[in-house]
């Protein structure tokens, strides 16, 4: 199961500052585990940000993004109470999503 996500969206003038933390191991496929065997690649590949249901940011990332990825985004033209939704999909097909109202 996917680890929890944390999201925070605050209004700064007419721009929403969005911060998100995604609980994920982001395994590169280069690291050896305690048993001396290579830990297989396991990483988020796709990230999507929606404002009131409309896609505003679409990202593709590699295994070189740090473990438990933290991102900041900025969305102009947002209002207090607008809904920000963020979702991810990894290379094994696991996914997760979270949402918040802009404060």
């Amino acid at each position, binding site marked *: 199961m996917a680890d929890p996500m944390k999201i925070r969206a605050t209004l700064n003038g007419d*721009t929403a500052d969005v911060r998100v933390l995604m609980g994920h191991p982001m395994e*590169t496929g*280069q*690291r*050896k585990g305690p048993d001396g065997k290579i830990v297989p690649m396991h990483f988020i*590949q*796709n*990230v999507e*940000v929606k*404002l009131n249901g*409309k*896609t*505003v*940011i*679409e*990202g*593709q*990332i*590699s*295994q*070189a*993004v*740090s*473990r438990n*990825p*933290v*991102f*900041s*985004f*900025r*969305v*102009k*033209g*947002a209002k207090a109470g607008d809904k920000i939704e963020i979702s991810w*999909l990894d*290379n094994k*097909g696991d996914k997760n999503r979270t949402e918040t109202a802009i404060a």
Partner: protein
Amino acid sequence: MNAIRRTTLKAAGAAFLLASGLLQPLRALAAGWNKAAFASKTPADALKNLGASGTLESKDILIEAPQIAENGLVVPIEIMSNVPNTKSIAVIIEKNPFPLVAQFDFMEGALPFLKINVKMGESSWVRVVAEAGGKHYTAAKEIKVTIGGCGG
């Protein structure tokens, strides 16, 4: 005759189920993840696979990152493109085994801004490529890494 036909049908059915079951997630990923670009082992190949040729150096791309990163496992990088109409931003760590780290598209009011934590195997130039109006603009910043973040 009938028996042969039945086995053939069964085999075909199994193959179909296998194919549809296995191919679906692959297809979904293939649509949204530029495998060729992310699997590229040199910055030049990554750029080519991103469709970014003939990049222009630009002072309008701002990269904020530590000059010296003590821990290569978590290197914070903040990027803002002031190139008008920037549609996408790509991040390339030139010395990483797979240099392309991220590619983000911005639309509908999203600012071409991104803060991201990355792993760096060793000291490297970090190159940002912004796409605007069909052209590619680039800026780079060198980050020195004390302890690499690719193994251990």
